[in-house]
């Protein structure tokens, strides 16, 4: 059964700081080659039910539009939402510190290991699978975000220009004011 697209599902109680750190560290440590936000979505929203899908997607959209790495922005936002100031700190540290220590130790090893065929296949397989989970998140956020033809046009322009290797900064700088402005006008009419 697909998880239902609920607007206010029954949420689990907010986790303690150690659990928050552990959850973000775990996700960060099992992600290879991109797709971290997809894994976070599946874990935090669908499995643990700490935040609603709507809140997660709002956080994701804002994290992308703000300067900084999307994943650390998302961790700060979700951590703050769950446990306030220290929650933001713990989620951010969990995302960065364990894999940060690992990357230094593994740096030399991975560089050598990735040349072997078994290593290459495993890393490429994990990366492709993680991208699949990101794709599923992309499909869900699209279904939720594209609620009228105007949103559809904004979505198509963002997708198309990004696929043609347009500058992400430029895409956001041009599209965001237009799209947010139109959303504001739309809300005024309701």
């Amino acid at each position, binding site marked *: 059964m697909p998880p239902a697209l609920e607007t206010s599902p029954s949420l689990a109680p907010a986790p303690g700081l150690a659990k928050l750190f552990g959850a973000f560290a775990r996700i960060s440590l099992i992600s290879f080659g991109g797709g971290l936000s997809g894994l976070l979505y599946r874990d935090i929203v669908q499995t643990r039910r700490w935040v609603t899908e709507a809140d997660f997607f709002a956080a994701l959209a804002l994290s992308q539009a703000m300067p900084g790495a999307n994943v650390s922005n998302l961790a700060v936002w979700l951590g703050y939402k769950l446990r306030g100031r220290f929650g933001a700190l713990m989620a951010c540290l969990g995302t960065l510190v364990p894999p940060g220590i690992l990357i230094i130790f593994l740096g030399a090893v991975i560089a050598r290991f990735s040349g072997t065929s078994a290593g290459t296949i495993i890393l490429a397989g994990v990366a492709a699978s993680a991208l699949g989970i*990101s794709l599923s998140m992309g499909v869900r956020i699209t279904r939720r975000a594209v609620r009228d033809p105007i949103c559809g046009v904004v979505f198509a322009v963002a997708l198309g220009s990004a696929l043609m290797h347009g500058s992400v900064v430029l895409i956001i700088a041009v599209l965001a004011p237009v799209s947010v402005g139109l959303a504001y006008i739309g809300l005024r009419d309701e």
Partner: protein
Amino acid sequence: MNEQNPLLSLLIVFVPLSLMAIGGGQSILGDMQREVVVHHGWMTAQAFQEIFAVSRVSPGPGLLIVTLIGWHVSGWLGAVVATAAIVVPSSLLVYALAYVWHSRPPAKWQRALSRGLAPIAAGLIIASVFHLLSQAQGQVVAWVVAIVVGALAIFSRVGQVLLLVGGTALFAVLRLF
């Protein structure tokens, strides 16, 4: 260039980059390479490419390339300083917005922001997945695995570790046969 204090140089390079990285770390990679290789001469272009490759196959967010650069320049302390320089400025901005956002009941501008940004986020997420898949090893196999795993993620409750392990096994089988 004044290279007397490498830790200070790391701060001077990465703090501005932190605030320039709109839309994610990809947007500043070019500037980062220019600063690290050309401006400061911390490493060769070849070494930068290798570090980039390591950051792509290591677990964790892509921004950890900065951790490796910091380590290369000035050891463990360099790794900590460089990572903090790229993360703290942008995190403080997000923290400030999160604080304002949650300190009052949702106002109209907040709903307009999340509604207006959502379709852009959706387009950028899907585009970045396509982009990464088009460069992925295995080409068609990578696409097939991603689509199968994506479909399972949408239509089933399979846990994500199982999805990753199963997807990797499928990838290996398809590549080897």
